[in-house]
């Protein structure tokens, strides 16, 4: 495509005009209610006009290029693979990369401050629960918008057990996981009959119900004021300083994350994992090929919930204080964004997604007002240009003697 043909310029001109019109009330007019005067900021209109004019040209140009690329890969034998993907799949690159990442992860708490380590713990918790959600959304294709409910179940299991019976972290970890698993099955039974959008709406509702129960059932969950003084993770009864405990929690999370990666990786290429993916690809065909849809969905839903439960227990132990405000729909959305942006079904993609979406906002506090805006824009752009996510799913290949 020629970048500056008359018709292209005309198109962009009208787009710019339309944007100037749309943003006129908020960008140009400013009413000062104290002095009762209106300020006309015409220069803003100029910026909007120029900005949308050039952006629209670039936007259409990139889309056209992308479509041309797709055509080429359809006629050619192998599909075009991104640079990222190639790096990931070449042993010469990924072996040293894994070693460096491993060493970096091990020494991290000793070269960075406690503040940084804390942020890293949070990120690892997100990595873990996003990998859990990846089973539900990425592999099985069930759009679950109430995932945070299971996170809350895990967190409250530990908080309540600790508050009432003084039960420690390590005992609570399997209990929290089991409770979340049970909730997954219980909630799964009624909702998994639904497909697609309906499932999304009902899970969204369930997520909110759990939060509202926690907020309003004061006798049980202490309402909005939450539960405090939750014990940090214990280390065989050894007393740790606050500093020591954070470092300990960090390594604990590294261990749990590795465990999660190990399990999800094994599940992915197993009989169950294949059934999940088949379910995502075509529910009707999947059932017609002899797979019990209900059972397959339930295992995905409940296993995903289990990881949210484990994450919840660690979260409660790490912050030592929880209340329902930590478990809003916004959390579900962030975790979902991690999975979608990172690459549905791809373990490495989801890990990268978590690092991008959790770490960037931490270090770009200056832009925190625009967080939603940037999230939204990033999602739209990704869906247009790389619908498979940063790193798209790779399927196992098998070798055969000829």
């Amino acid at each position, binding site marked *: 495509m020629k970048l500056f043909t008359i018709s292209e310029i005309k198109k962009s001109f009208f787009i710019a005009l339309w944007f100037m019109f749309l943003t006129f009330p908020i960008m140009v007019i400013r009413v000062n209610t104290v002095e009762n005067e209106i300020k006309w900021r015409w220069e803003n209109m100029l910026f909007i006009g120029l900005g949308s004019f050039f952006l629209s040209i670039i936007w259409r140009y990139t889309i056209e290029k992308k479509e041309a690329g797709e055509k080429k890969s359809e006629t050619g034998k192998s599909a075009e693979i991104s640079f990222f993907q190639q790096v990931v799949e070449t042993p010469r690159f990924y072996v040293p990369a894994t070693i460096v990442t491993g060493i970096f992860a091990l020494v991290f708490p000793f070269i960075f401050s406690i503040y940084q380590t804390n942020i890293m713990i949070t990120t690892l918790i997100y990595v873990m629960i996003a990998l859990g959600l990846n089973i539900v959304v990425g592999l099985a294709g069930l759009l679950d918008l109430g995932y945070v409910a299971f996170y809350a179940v895990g967190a409250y299991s530990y908080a309540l057990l600790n508050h009432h019976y003084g039960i420690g972290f390590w005992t609570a970890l399997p209990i929290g996981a089991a409770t979340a698993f049970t909730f997954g099955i219980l909630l799964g039974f009624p909702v998994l009959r639904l497909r697609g959008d309906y499932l999304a709406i009902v899970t969204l509702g369930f997520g909110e119900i759990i939060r509202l129960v926690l907020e309003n059932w004061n006798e049980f969950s202490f309402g909005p004021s939450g539960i405090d003084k939750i014990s940090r993770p214990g280390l065989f009864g050894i007393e740790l300083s606050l500093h020591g405990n954070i470092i300990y929690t960090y390594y604990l999370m590294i261990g749990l994350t590795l465990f999660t990666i190990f399990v999800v990786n094994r599940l992915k290429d*197993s009989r169950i994992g294949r059934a999940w993916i088949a379910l995502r690809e075509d529910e009707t065909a999947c059932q017609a*090929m002899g*797979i019990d849809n209900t059972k397959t969905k339930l295992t995905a839903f409940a296993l995903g919930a289990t990881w949210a439960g484990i994450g919840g227990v660690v979260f409660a132990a790490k912050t030592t204080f929880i209340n329902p405000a930590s478990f809003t729909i916004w959390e579900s959305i962030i975790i979902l964004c991690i999975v979608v942006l990172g690459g549905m079904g791809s373990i490495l993609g989801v890990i990268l997604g978590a690092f991008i979406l959790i770490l960037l906002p931490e270090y770009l506090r200056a832009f925190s007002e625009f967080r939603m805006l940037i999230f939204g824009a990033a999602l739209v752009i990704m869906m247009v240009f790389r619908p498979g996510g940063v790193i798209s799913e790779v399927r196992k290949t098998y070798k055969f003697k000829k």
Partner: protein
Amino acid sequence: MNKVLEVKNLRMNFGGLSAIDTFNLDVSDGEIVAVIGPNGAGKTTLFNCITGLYTASSGDILISPPDKKTKSIIGFKPNIITESGLARTFQNIRLFSNMTVLENVMIGRHCRLNSGIIGAIFRPKTTVNEEEQVVQDSYDILEKIGLEKYVNEFAKNLPYGAQRRLEIARALATDPFLLLLDEPAAGMNMQETKELDDLILKIRDEEKISILLIEHDMSLVMSLSDRIIVMDYGKNIAQGNPAEIKRNTDVIKAYLGETFA
């Protein structure tokens, strides 16, 4: 010959429309039966009723798996019916596009395998063996169908004809005694249709699988079928061997309209 499938007085209503109207059909062991009829006659709906995707409004469907008692499959879920030995392909191809060709076939084996979550995570010897076995079995099926060169390709990247064959491979992987093919030759060229003809005969003769097929390609139907059933407006309007059907005036009417009869 004993009957492997018997459809008795089947009715299927969608609101006011009766897509299948007191329909009768049977397939004997080792037989190739074709169902033909104009578009909208209810052929696909018939398949959907037999394979459990739709629940028939009334009537009965009986199957007799080899060495097992005859049983009714009305009200069974599709996966249970497939487990009992009926496998199908779809008129509008429904492969698992983002899975490899081999994985598509492996999904077909799913209901013949046992390992669960615990097996997947800990990979005991039994699971490892089972996985090796399913990979080999699936590969063998692909070889038989002639798709082995695509083994690690994504299903969506296959040429059209190969996709149709993959659907058959996937269905065969479920170990059926009766295979239901919904317009397997649709969109194929002459060469591909010829190959399909051979393939279907091979499946019947070597795998000892009975076949019920829907097809519009009359040369294929005439050369393959032992028996043809003609369907129009959900009714069985004629049946017989290919020679009889060619002569039948009702059939010509249904296909070409009154004036030609």
